[in-house]
């Protein structure tokens, strides 16, 4: 029980950040499932949402800036897909990945330019930033709220995918891109929807994340983005529940490692996990193998 007691703040922090990683991870896994693309720019979209919040809330009331941030982030994700990924759909796979890297590079440089490299403070959102005590550990409300929010959104998403027409279209496209097109599915709508959902979740995740870690810098999105991607790979690319599971695992483990005093390695843990899963079970926890026809 002693371990639990001393590490409770870390475990709670882990669950919280895990939920935030999960919201980002879903974006990665959905896009990869459909386009077989690792959207390197996704983490930077997450970071941009943070900055938008900083600037908008300076001149607008919170009840206006929050939905506006979400809307603008969704718009950004949509535009990135249309401008940088759609033209390369027929190109070899490396080209589109390079485009994603280029977009990531561009967004980070823009963020640096706009902020002149100075870190910005995320606005304090009342109530969720308040302190609360859980089992004698003090933490913010957002820490408790995040997992609840995350699981709620994930449940809504799973319902969408299972029971709506667009959800079925998404599933079909991720199985077989070309045949889906031949069957009359509007590929562009499906792909745009995927990016919209991913960006929406990233925006929500960003609000929760930066309420906790209040400094926003141009590179603030790289690490969470990379970790979220590892979570997606761990869970099995294309599997939402796998990505969520992986994200919570990473969040909790990296915070326990911090609690044990090995802070330098908390980031490396994620990558070690990645290597292990890629060697032991490359298709991830819930992924499926596919065979190429010779």
């Amino acid at each position: 029980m002693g371990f639990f007691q001393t590490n409770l703040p870390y475990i709670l922090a882990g669950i919280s950040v895990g939920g935030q990683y999960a919201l980002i991870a879903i974006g990665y896994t959905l896009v990869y499932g459909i386009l077989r693309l690792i959207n390197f720019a996704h983490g930077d979209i997450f970071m941009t949402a943070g900055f938008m919040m900083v600037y908008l809330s300076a001149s607008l009331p919170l009840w206006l800036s929050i939905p506006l941030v979400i809307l603008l982030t969704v718009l950004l994700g949509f535009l990135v897909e249309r401008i940088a990924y759609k033209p390369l759909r027929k190109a070899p796979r490396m080209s589109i990945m390079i485009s994603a890297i280029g977009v990531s590079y561009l967004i980070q440089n823009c963020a640096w330019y706009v902020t002149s490299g100075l870190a910005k403070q995320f606005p304090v959102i009342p109530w969720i930033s308040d302190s609360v005590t859980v089992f004698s550990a003090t933490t913010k409300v957002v820490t408790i709220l995040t997992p609840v929010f995350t699981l709620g959104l994930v449940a809504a998403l799973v319902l969408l995918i299972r029971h709506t027409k667009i959800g079925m279209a998404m599933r079909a496209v991720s199985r077989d891109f070309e045949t889906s097109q031949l069957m009359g599915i509007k590929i562009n709508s499906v792909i745009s929807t995927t990016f919209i959902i991913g960006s929406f979740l990233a925006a929500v995740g960003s609000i929760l994340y930066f309420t906790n870690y209040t400094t926003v810098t141009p590179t603030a999105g790289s690490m969470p983005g990379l970790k979220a991607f590892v979570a997606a790979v761990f869970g099995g690319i294309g599997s939402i529940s796998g990505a969520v599971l992986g994200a919570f695992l990473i969040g909790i483990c990296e915070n326990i490692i911090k609690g044990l005093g090995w802070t330098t390695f908390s980031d490396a843990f994620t990558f070690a996990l990645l290597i292990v899963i890629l060697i032991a079970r490359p298709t991830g926890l819930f992924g499926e193998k596919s065979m190429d026809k010779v």
Partner: protein
Amino acid sequence: MKMKNKIITAVVLIMALFVLLLALERILPPSSMLFVVLKKGAIYALVAVSMNLLNGFTGLFSLGQAGFMLIGAYTYAILTIPMEARGMVYQYFDGGIVPLALPVILAIPLAGLVTAIFAYLIGLPVLRLKSDYLAIATLGFAEIIRAILQWDKLGPITNGSNLLKLYPVFTSVIFPFAVTGVCIAIIVLLINSSYGRAFKAIREDETAAEAMGINLAHHKQLSFTISSFFAGIGGALLAMYQTTVQASAFRATMTYEILLIVVIGGIGSVTGSCISSFLFIACSEWWLRFLDNTIFIGNFQVPLLGPGFRKVVFSVIVMIIVLFYSRGIMGTKELSLEGLYQFLRKRSEKKKKGDVPA
């Protein structure tokens, strides 16, 4: 052109290049931006070509270059810091535990060798993976390397999170050019050999390559290790250029920049990577510098110009190239005297027929 003539022309051109460089060093002040571009450009050209060997010629999409450059840089620095200076550099670690200081001429190849050994070990599990997963796995390993080299417990060797300095550096631009030149020459020899053909076969169609008796694991490992060897040497050169080296600077962004250099020059073109490297460095460090200054025309401040704008414009240019000129400057072709000669001849023929306006 006959083989003998080709070799003579090549030698003459190389000598002319070195004469030119020496002349420039006499004429221009050492702080001139041209030298920054030439030195850094040469170093990045070597790393870009090494990355092209792996990504462009063998088709293995690896994003671990920054990690390998880091190993090379650190190996070089650790092995060459003169004994007298060690106390100062390793001030938190009682002078560190490395008992020797090697001459530069040994340390550089050794840097490459150590990197190659690490690459071999990393390659064992990682090269079996599909292309996208390979990218992320190598990226992950680069980050792990970066974390390990900053670890305090290894401080007596690596100086922990402090930077390494006071190791031998170069002043003349001839040095990086010479080292890079030799290395790239070796890579070109490799590419044009039977093994180079095997690498290209793997890139084109792994199944067919296997059916032709090419052992995939062995050849992928060869390409990976050799590429990393040269990336390590590039890292050592970079350490010499920067005069101080710190693990935290070797982030994924560095790998992305090399990748963009390779793409802009043309995946599969060695000369393309070289040209593009110099252009890339020139643009990002020199030619677009004016965009970073706030310029006033009278009392009117030109909008948008300011610190950081240079990188924004640069990123946009890169995106345009990636989207519209994805074959890069050279595509998969190499720049050669014959090619240039044919190109000019065709143009003058077209002019005579009136197709091309004079």
